[in-house]
């Protein structure tokens, strides 16, 4: 038995996992329209590489990555691009973002797939490139682009690869069922990841001990490998990356750093599966396992859902009854966020669609004052003092919040879960984090503005000093001229000499005039544009003004042309 470390805190909410495990992975009918947001991951939005009306095949890239921290998007089925526009997307804020809509033709015509069963002959970089190109992102929740994670880790020496199959959120069984049915493919995916990471010394799969079937399946699949399957005690949030690493290795990721900084990489088991499909089968990430569960659904089970499937389609096929549903949640009951509408679509990070009944997750009771009972501190897996954070969040005391390590809060919700006064603690922390980041940014830009101002001040001072020196010199020269007895002819002569010296060579003059002409022409064009606009929508006064400025600009051009001709002659 491997030694395990116990994390502080944690809670044991009702698991509610059995209801969605009665049936295996199911398939849905193909929805008529699929909506694909361009941001389904952490990082920059993908850039559409199709136009409205384009015919696309299943698996064809429809938006490409826009940098290192981005992920492409692929058509989940064959059909026609029917819209590229802002739609509400799956985000806690309920915001809208650019999406591509694919209208399915029902044919499911695949692109040509390039399988790389012999990926070991490719270099790690090449394999990582395949993963990036398939649009694989973390499927556990955060959605970090997988290739970016692996590439970044490759720059350090990675000693331990941890596969996160914990699935500690109640209700969600997507990883569980995937492991039960497709453990062998997950192991293949792990091998691919190991190859990219130059073969880490040890590979551990962390899984909560409330999934005995999945554990057996993994152990069976790992038999002839060096991969170790470690069953850990069931406790929320053991599946947090930081928590799982501590449980398995006893090491903590220093605050503000990444697992790779201590030689570890943590990848979700569903992501390992997607990586196997991407590399060995050449299939881009166009579907995922999503749990559809909750008392308001007639059927509770897992589906292999096409990314972009509208939630309403999913619900409809699960005998969803609206009036029984207290709220609609994407993700689990602890960290998931409520959806304002069922029109938005399943994305790469959608682990679960939870439609609980009124008795399962009732309306919130009214908030009561905090009595600092400390149950939250007992539950906190990061050893924070949530009651103090709440206190300082209310008074917006940013200094104290940071002294109490607000930014080490993983927003797992354990504090809020146990709070007897029904205080939405996590919401306070989220908003405080946002405020602190905002004020930090304001501070930074204020510092930059100050720097600019000070620089300008120095420059102006210098110029003023230089002018002062000149003025002084001139004053002295005039004094001299006044006192000296030189004749007027001498003075005129000297002035002529100065003028001659100032006069540039013809070539220089010509170049200067040409530049002036260019600028004048440009100004004329601009003025003409403005005139057109003023004629269209401006008042009579504005029109007259613009007309005058066009005239002025034209004269300037003529004048410069004449002078230029003179110089050339």
């Amino acid at each position, binding site marked *: 038995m491997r030694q395990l470390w116990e994390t502080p805190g944690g*809670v044991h*909410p009702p698991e509610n996992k059995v209801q969605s495990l009665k049936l295996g992975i199911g398939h849905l009918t193909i929805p008529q329209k699929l909506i694909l947001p361009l941001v389904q991951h952490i990082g920059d939005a993908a850039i559409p590489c199709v136009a409205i009306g384009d015919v696309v095949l299943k698996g064809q890239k429809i938006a490409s990555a826009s940098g290192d921290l981005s992920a492409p998007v692929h058509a989940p089925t064959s059909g026609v691009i029917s819209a590229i526009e802002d739609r509400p997307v799956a985000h*806690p804020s309920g915001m809208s973002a650019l999406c591509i809509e694919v209208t399915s033709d029902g044919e499911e015509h695949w692109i040509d797939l390039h399988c790389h069963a012999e990926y070991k002959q490719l270099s790690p970089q090449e394999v990582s490139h395949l993963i990036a190109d398939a649009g694989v992102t973390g499927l556990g929740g955060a959605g970090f682009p997988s290739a970016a994670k692996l590439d970044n880790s490759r720059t350090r020496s990675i000693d331990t690869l941890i596969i996160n199959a914990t699935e500690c959120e109640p209700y969600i069984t997507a990883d569980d069922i995937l492991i039960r049915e497709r453990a062998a493919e997950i192991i293949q995916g792990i091998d691919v990841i190991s190859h990219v990471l130059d073969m880490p010394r040890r590979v551990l799969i962390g899984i909560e001990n409330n999934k005995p079937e999945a554990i057996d399946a993994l152990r069976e699949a790992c038999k002839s490998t060096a991969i170790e399957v470690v069953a850990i005690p069931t406790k929320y949030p053991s599946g947090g990356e*930081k928590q799982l690493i*501590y449980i398995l290795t006893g090491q*903590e*990721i*220093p*605050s503000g750093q990444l697992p790779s900084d201590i030689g570890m990489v943590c990848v979700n088991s569903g992501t390992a599966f997607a990586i196997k499909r991407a590399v060995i089968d050449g299939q881009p990430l166009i579907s995922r396992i999503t749990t559809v569960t909750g008392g308001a659904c007639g059927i509770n089970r897992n589906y292999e859902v096409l990314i972009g499937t509208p939630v*309403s389609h999913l619900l409809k096929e699960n005998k969803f009854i609206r009036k029984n*549903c207290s*709220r*609609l949640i994407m*993700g689990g*009951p*602890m*960290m*998931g966020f*409520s*959806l*304002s*509408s069922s*029109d938005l679509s399943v994305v790469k990070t959608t682990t679960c669609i*939870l439609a609980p009944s009124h008795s399962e*997750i009732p309306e*919130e*009771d009214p908030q*009561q*004052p*905090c*009595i*600092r*009972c*400390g*149950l939250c*501190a*007992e539950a906190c*897996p990061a*050893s*924070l003092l949530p009651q*103090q954070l709440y206190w300082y969040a209310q008074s917006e005391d940013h*200094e*104290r919040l*940071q*002294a*109490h*390590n607000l930014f*080490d809060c993983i*927003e797992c*919700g*354990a504090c*809020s*879960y*146990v*709070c*007897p*006064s*029904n205080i*939405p603690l996590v*919401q306070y922390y989220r908003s405080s984090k946002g405020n602190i980041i905002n004020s930090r940014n304001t501070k930074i830009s204020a510092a930059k503005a100050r720097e600019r101002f000070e620089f300008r001040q120095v420059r102006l001072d210098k110029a003023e000093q230089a002018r002062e020196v000149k003025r002084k010199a001139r004053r002295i020269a005039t004094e001299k001229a006044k006192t000296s007895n030189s004749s007027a002819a001498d003075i005129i002569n000297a002035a002529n000499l100065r003028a001659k010296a100032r006069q540039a060579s013809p070539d220089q003059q010509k170049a200067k005039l040409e530049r002036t002409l260019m600028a004048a022409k440009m100004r004329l064009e601009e003025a003409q544009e403005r005139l057109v606009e003023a004629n269209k929508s401006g008042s009579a006064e504005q029109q007259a003004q613009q007309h005058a400025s066009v005239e002025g600009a034209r004269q300037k051009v003529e004048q410069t042309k004449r002078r230029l001709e003179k110089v050339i002659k």
Partner: protein
Amino acid sequence: MAFKQITSPHEHKRQSTGRIMQLVLIATLPGLLVLSYQFGWGILINLFLAVFAAISAEALILKIRQRPIGLYLRDYSAVVTGVLLGLSLPPLVPWWLVVVATVFSIVIAKQLYGGLGSNPFNPAMVGYVVVLISFPIEMTTWVTPVSLLPEGISHPGLFESLTIVFAGFSPLDGVTGATPLDLFKHSDGLLVDQIYQNNTLFSSASFAGVGWEWVNVAFLLGGLGLLKARIFTWHGPVAMLVTLATMSMLFWDGGSSNSPGSPLMHLFSGAAMFGAFFIVTDPVSSAVSNRGRLFYGALIGLLVYVIRAWGSYPDAVAFAVLLGNFAAPFIDNYTVPRTYGHNQRRKATAKEEDE
């Protein structure tokens, strides 16, 4: 289809502040029963008076502050304050004394600071100290434990007790007497053995002092129940009791005429157990972290002993707790737990390093 948007987590443990307070009330039952058995009807009269006054005062202030009265009364915090006061005040004191203490607790010590959760001091102890300082004679007159009553005299009955409390009648001779801590305070020049021989309060006791030892055992039991129900952690009470025991062990000096008494006597006399499990554990006015509560409890244990041994009051839990309340924010500053991913604990007032 449109749905309600609610912030995560969506799942909540079905636990409420009112429920926690109810458990605290239930846990006082053993103590209440033993107190009533040992000292008669006076205890229950105090209790009802205090609870009635507490609820009335709370409702009145909530109304003035325009807060929802029903919602705040349902958190049972006023009832708890009333019960704790009722249990601490001497039986058969005049009714107005109970009312003054309770109203002061609720109005001044709690609501004027912002109500539940905002009071820096334990309201019940503030009320207690106010009447202790203002009415020292009434507050230091305790009833004799049932087994030590003189021949032919019993505790006054319910009606008689009511006349004493409300109409100012005096109880019969022998019904009131000293507490074990009083005896120690006022027996200068006697060896501990002599004190024990001369007084039936000790000579017929099982291990600490007649009546009081069982009162303390009962509160200890109730407290252990709350500990088991995870209403509070062990840190505060254990730190207080251990410090109290350690101090009395250190200064026991074999029972000379200067000895302030044995550890067993200190642990099981006066308000030791009641204080440890029902007052020190008040989360609002105590230190917040577990480590902080260790220091907080220890400080209170230390102060209880210091005042009992060398101060002018026989018992000291109320004073010690109030002084502990003063120190709590200071303790909090130095006892922030080490957060995941940090090498060391930080001070609550630490500044973010300049990047």
